[in-house]
């Protein structure tokens, strides 16, 4: 479904991604972890072309992301994305947030988009808040709405960029629960996160990145059982110790 081959990216002289390669199969859940500044957020943003890259290829469902001929908006409309800071549109109500792209991008009729949006809002347990504005919801609630907003586009895959790291601890689980459910339903997911509990529960594979490179790319059990690289070991012991 998502194929990343030899991707490199530079900001001026500084290399943020060096020669990254991996694959995400249909229905697979892949967790990407690593210390901050390791390039994991940049990599996931390359997948739907939000960040340009200078070398290598990324192919999503047969479409090459880096090709100048690719209709990026069209590709993006088929790949859902959830951000660290939710990025709901603060000037639009929850319902409008859920329907805007359905109407403007997919050309769905008003009531169809509304029905779809409200059904998904119900699924994330927030149907009572449809008329509110994002600023009136808690962080955890906003992130659940953001997931519903992405799902409303009927995506073929979902990208999560540190979806819980801006949340207060007591709200992390309500978001993770939604993501676990999604994974169990067979959604193809690429998730940048530090939540190793989530990775243990639903991930098929774990990718460990450091200094712009993919250091380890292993099955979940292998990764948690016996990580090969020293850096991954150090990272795991740090993150699992508390």
């Amino acid at each position, binding site marked *: 479904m998502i194929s990343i081959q030899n991707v490199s990216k530079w900001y001026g002289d500084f290399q943020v991604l060096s020669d990254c390669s991996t694959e995400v199969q249909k229905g697979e859940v892949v967790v990407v972890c690593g210390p901050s500044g390791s390039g994991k957020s940049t990599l996931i943003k390359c997948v739907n072309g*939000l960040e340009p890259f200078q070398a290598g290829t990324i192919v999503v469902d047969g479409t090459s992301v880096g090709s100048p001929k690719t209709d990026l*908006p069209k590709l993006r409309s088929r790949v859902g994305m959830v951000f660290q800071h939710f990025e709901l549109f*603060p000037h639009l109500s929850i319902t409008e947030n859920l329907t805007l792209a359905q109407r*403007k*991008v*997919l050309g769905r009729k008003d009531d169809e988009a509304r029905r779809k949006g409200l059904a998904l809002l119900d699924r994330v347990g927030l149907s009572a808040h449809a008329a509110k*504005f994002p600023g009136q919801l808690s962080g955890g609630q906003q992130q659940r709405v953001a997931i519903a*907003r*992405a799902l409303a586009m009927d995506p073929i895959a979902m990208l999560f960029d540190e979806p819980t790291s801006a949340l207060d601890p007591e709200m992390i689980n309500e978001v993770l629960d939604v993501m676990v459910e999604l994974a169990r339903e067979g959604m193809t997911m690429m998730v940048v996160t530090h939540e190793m509990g989530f990775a243990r529960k639903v991930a098929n594979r774990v990718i460990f990145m450091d200094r712009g490179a993919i250091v380890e790319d292993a099955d979940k059990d292998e990764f948690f059982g016996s990580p090969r690289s020293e850096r991954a070991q150090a990272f795991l012991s740090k993150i699992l110790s508390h």
Partner: protein
Amino acid sequence: MNYNWDWSVFFKSTGIGSEIYLDWFITGLGWTVALSLSSWVIALLLGTVLGVMRTLPGRFAARFATVYVELFRNVPLLVQLFVWYFLVPDWLPEKLELWFKQDLHPATSAFISVTVCLGLFTAARVCEQVRTGIQALPRGQAMAAYALGLRLPQVYRKVLLPQAFRIIIPPLTSEFLNVFKNSSVASLIGLMELLAQTKQTAEFTANLFEAFTLATVIYFVLNMALMLIMRGVEKRVRVPGLIALGGK
């Protein structure tokens, strides 16, 4: 003090038909308002386009808008007015030039010159406000909009501009008020707006204190009224639960 105050002067006949001096002020106010509103429409539209251009990824658009802003900000308004009024008509195609200079009523051609001049002048200022507003938004907002598959014009129209405009209502209000004040330069090319009518009344009646006091009061009241209106607008478009935008 050997000055004879006479506030009844405004109700005296000007000697032209049944006109009283107050009528001059009303006519003048009419021109001032018409000038300001039409210039503001140009400034708002053009300024928004330029402001958006300054935030686009493409080098050319951003550079063009920057040059525009620097040019229109660093040449005095009056010089710009002289250029629009004395020079530009000469550069028009011959037919248009004759139409502008001969067929149009002098007040109409002056009106057009001032409107274009003030509109383009103010657009440079509006541009900077719009740019500031857009850049004050978290970068993730544009990213999220693109991630949903929206195209660039939709991202600006639906996501960035509605938020940016809410942020910049206060500075835009003061630009709006500036347009009213700046429209007084029209008096220097003979358009009988409020200031020109005031001067004329002062010269005709020798009651210059009364004339200028009335003009001052009109500008002052106009200013206050516009400020109240804009405050109302700000309140109306306020988004519930949103205290400060652009936190990150």
